[in-house]
């Protein structure tokens, strides 16, 4: 498929650059930028539709924060350009930070010609390219940032509960009321209420619905 799509390859690793150029040159106009000091000026000069950024190589000497900052600067300055990062040493947290910074995809570096063509075509067609697992995490984190519902719940607060409190929290998550919980656990209803007060205080939840959803989120995370 012929296309006038312009691609800028940012990489300090010539082997990767040459392979990608070979894989993409039939369908796209490809320009390579080898030196990280030139990245911004070359983006300005060539105005590509998409940037493929190899995070490995010399940039691997940077710590995650510095690397992220480099990407943020490029992303903020060139907002119309699609941005895909590549690395053979993926760190899920760094990938998420990059996605939050606005990039459109992430992939490992050692991929076939067919796959890299698919990535470029997909992202240029307004699609996201990341793993399913990270896709779900990204949506949840963005929703939390956008203050959607209660998705910002920190499930680690459940670790502070005693075994009995966790047992009661699980029953609350199943929709049981205090009287039923007391009967099921063979304890007094006032004891259940005391446990509930402690559970609410430790988890920071305000009501049974919030607690139920916290437990639900925790179960989904721990099952994976």
């Amino acid at each position, binding site marked *: 498929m012929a296309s006038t799509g312009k691609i800028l390859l940012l990489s300090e690793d010539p082997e990767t650059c040459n392979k990608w150029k070979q894989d993409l040159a039939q369908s796209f106009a490809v320009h390579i930028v080898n030196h990280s000091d030139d990245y911004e000026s070359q983006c300005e000069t060539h105005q590509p539709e998409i940037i493929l950024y190899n995070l490995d190589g010399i940039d691997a000497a940077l710590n995650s924060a510095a690397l992220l900052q480099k990407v943020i600067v490029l992303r903020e300055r060139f907002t119309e350009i699609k941005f895909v990062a590549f690395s053979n040493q993926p760190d899920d947290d760094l990938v998420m930070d990059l*996605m939050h910074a*606005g990039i*459109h995809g992430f992939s490992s570096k050692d991929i076939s010609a067919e796959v890299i063509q698919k990535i470029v075509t*997909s992202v240029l*067609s*307004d*699609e*996201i*390219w990341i793993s*399913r*697992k990270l*896709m*779900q995490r*990204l*949506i*949840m984190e*963005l*929703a939390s*940032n*956008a*203050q*959607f*519902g209660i*998705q910002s719940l920190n499930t680690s607060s459940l670790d502070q509960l005693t075994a009995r409190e966790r047992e009661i929290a699980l029953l609350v*998550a*199943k*929709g049981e009321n205090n009287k039923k919980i007391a009967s099921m656990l063979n304890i007094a209803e006032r004891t259940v209420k005391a446990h509930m007060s402690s559970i609410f205080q430790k988890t920071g939840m305000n009501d049974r*619905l919030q607690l*139920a*959803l916290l*437990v*639900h*989120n925790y*179960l*989904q995370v721990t*099952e*994976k």
Partner: protein
Amino acid sequence: MKKSERPVTIVLSDKNQSVLDHCEKLLANEWSMWVIGHGSSEAEVLEVVQRTQPGVIMLGLDLVNDRKMGLIQLLLTKSPGSRLLLLADNDQYGVSDALASGACGVLMYSDMDTWLVKAIQKVSEGEPWISRKLAYQVVEHLRTLSCQVAANP
């Protein structure tokens, strides 16, 4: 029986009966997937989900919009072990809300014939189900909202 051998239990819910009938037909030959209940109203789906505790809840977006996503959260409290697969058209904003409220995936009505079985399988295994195109739209929408929230704390 290994976890992978256990059939996936499914509750189907949509306002449109023909959608429910079509889903049943598509799943009729899937021996590892059992439809154990239906609902075409909020009250029906809440009752059947609480009673049956299905592995997967398939939920039409039109049912959800009446209650502004509260139905999703309510269903997940009634059946905390269930995973929710939304059936939707191209209403991207409703989809963003639903995913943020706890839905595990979104399947377009137009893709049901091709992808229904695989979508249910993936969601039941804990993987999300959303097309790359729809994910892009949802992510861009949420990014815009995040920026607005950040600008107006």
